[in-house]
């Protein structure tokens, strides 16, 4: 059972992400670098948020839900801040690449970088959310986690005690609820990707509205997870949010219904340019 849960949940959580990476990112070295850089920025934001939470817990002397809420909100805001920092860095990189290339265009566009960095934020945030649970679900001893955090037992204990319907849902009551977590992770990965695209576009065009909406929807998504043991209320709206954000990102990136139709019908648009060939060609000067 352990292996089935492990592979199933891993596939659910990271299937889309893995497909996106394999199909669009893995082949291009520049994109892989942007992927790793994005992950680094997310980690920095997490570090800052944890520091903030830790300090606040130490100062207040107790650990309660209000502080956690504040910590989560701070984490969201810091993530968006780091996304902005990532944008700045990538923008500079784009300009640098454009300067250095022969024809004045950089080999990777800012939109591609927006997509890849959003994807990287999604992947690393999803991984951090779920990997310990996955490892736990793979069965005792196999993965060799030494010294579990005490919370996992509490969580699984809660899950066990919570009621039959959840156990039926997962098929096994002895581990933390893997399946809803996996779905949430998948939604989160996709959401981050879409937010990345929208955010960069809004920054590029200096539209505060777009920025505000991204931050707002991130806070909303995070807030919805507070309803979490009540999965209908959290999973459903989050998936709806994912869908809407996806459509918005698609529109931002220049997509439209016509594009989709054209793509589906595999039509090739004739090039509007005339290509001139000459036997004597001077190598292009810069």
């Amino acid at each position, binding site marked *: 059972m352990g292996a089935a849960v492990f592979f199933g949940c891993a596939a659910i959580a990271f299937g889309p992400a893995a497909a996106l990476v394999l199909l669009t990112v893995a082949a291009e*070295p*520049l994109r*892989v*670098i*942007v992927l*790793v*850089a994005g*992950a*680094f920025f997310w*980690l920095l934001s*997490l*570090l800052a*948020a*944890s*520091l903030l939470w*830790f300090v606040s817990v130490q100062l207040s002397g107790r*650990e309660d839900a209000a502080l*956690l809420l504040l*910590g*989560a909100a701070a*984490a969201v805001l810091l993530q968006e801040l780091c996304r902005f920092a990532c944008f700045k*860095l990538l923008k*500079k*990189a*784009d*300009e*640098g*690449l454009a*300067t*250095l290339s*022969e024809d004045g265009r950089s*080999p990777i566009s800012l939109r591609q970088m927006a997509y890849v960095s959003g994807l990287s934020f999604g992947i*690393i*945030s999803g*991984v*951090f*959310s779920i*990997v*310990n*649970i996955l*490892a736990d679900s793979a069965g005792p001893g*196999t*993965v*060799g*986690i*030494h*010294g579990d*955090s005490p*919370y*996992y037992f*509490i*969580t699984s204990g809660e899950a066990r005690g919570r009621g039959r319907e959840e156990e039926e849902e997962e098929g096994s009551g002895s581990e933390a*609820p893997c399946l809803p977590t996996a779905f949430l992770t998948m939604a989160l990965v996709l959401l981050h990707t879409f937010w990345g695209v929208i955010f960069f576009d809004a920054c590029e065009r200096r539209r505060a509205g777009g920025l505000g909406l991204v931050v707002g929807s991130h806070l909303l998504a*995070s807030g919805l*997870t*507070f309803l*979490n043991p009540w999965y209908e209320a959290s999973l459903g709206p989050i998936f709806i949010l994912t869908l809407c954000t996806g459509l918005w990102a698609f529109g931002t990136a220049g997509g439209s219904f016509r594009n989709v139709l054209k793509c589906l019908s595999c039509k090739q648009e004739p090039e509007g340019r005339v290509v001139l060939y000459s036997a004597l060609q001077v*190598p292009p*000067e*810069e």
Partner: protein
Amino acid sequence: MITFMNNSDSEEEPCNERTSLMSAESPPVPSYQDGLQASEAGEAQAHRKRRAGSSRGPNNTAGGETSGSGVPVRERALENEEEELTLKYGAKHVIMLFVPVTLCMIVVVATIKSVRFYTEKNGQLIYTPFSEDTPSVGQRLLNSVLNTIIMISVIIVMTVFLVLLYKYRCYKFIHGWLILSSLMLLFLFTYIYLGEVLKTYNVAMDYPTLFIVIWNFGAVGMICIHWKGPLQLQQAYLIMISALMALVFIKYLPEWSAWVILGAISIYDLMAVLCPKGPLRMLVETAQERNEPIFPALIYSSAMMWTVGMAKPDTAARGPSQQTWDAAEDGREHLKSPSHAESQMSEARSPVPTRPVTSLEELEEEERGVKLGLGDFIFYSVLVGKAAATASGDWNTTLACFVAILIGLCLTLLLLAVFKKALPALPISITFGLIFYFSTDNLVRPFMDTLASHQLYI
């Protein structure tokens, strides 16, 4: 140490690789700088990619054959081509190093997480004599610092010894030493590793089979590393021996000592490579003066070398399938003596760039590579492996360290492209790795655990 050779060092030849091949970078250095002014501020991927590819300098490959034939020496065109090519190749080289480093780390982490042997405490090396079993924190800290001092001194002594041997041309001694090291790694450590893995998975294997397997593995490894072999096989062997060495370190270094040693060795690396009288720098410079390849094996090279016949484009003889890498001829510095393996590992970090030699016709297809010493692989894997072994069973810490190391490597390659000379690969990565390890283990883990227990997502 990562290095490319600096063009300006070997300017004796009028017709050197600089004019003949596009790999030359030095002449356009001013123009690079100019081009860079515009985008200077971003220590961005732009520079990184551009630069990372650009640094190969003329190399003192054995024979120094360069394609003297008919080079279109139009400096401008060459420069542009170089710029364009370095841009194209720069990011690729970063990935060419990401992949082996990642593979090595995956092997180490997978072993640590599954084979109990490497996390059990079974004594310590003689290089770290002080035990950490003391009750008081101060005593433990003191012991780990003392262990570090001893270890680093051993490393320094070994490196200096090696540099002296090299300076006084005792090549046979060095070769013998290196062969002994690889023998021990490829046979003894592999045997132990295989034994432990079989024990973990409760697989029975009889001695004759074991003998045949180990013999084949080791013999092919020796040939690939010290003589000739397919490039990818050689790379695979180098990754495996780095992983084995890292596992030995993870097992036998006590906890606090390991962290202090990692910190100290990055400082040592920084000094040994950059200070004018640093042993590694002297080694590299001596090799460059003598126009000699440094020692075979134990520097991981990511390049593909096309064996080239100078005058005739013999396409039948050449081609992508023929990626042989002449280990013996290449300038790779490799200071590893498994008998004193632990101390030596650090040295295996001094690369000398070897540029593949190609003829003009193959300009487009030449792939140049960047070299990374095996000591770097080893210490990266030690850091990630220790994180996997001791971080309260948390995968987040391991992943954070992994990302940190990759980013450090990226930045180092960027600096390499900027400075175009041998650079230490440890400091930036290890610093990031250590920062991320301690902060993730102590700050992020409680936060994420609390969030996870309430099933909150951020």
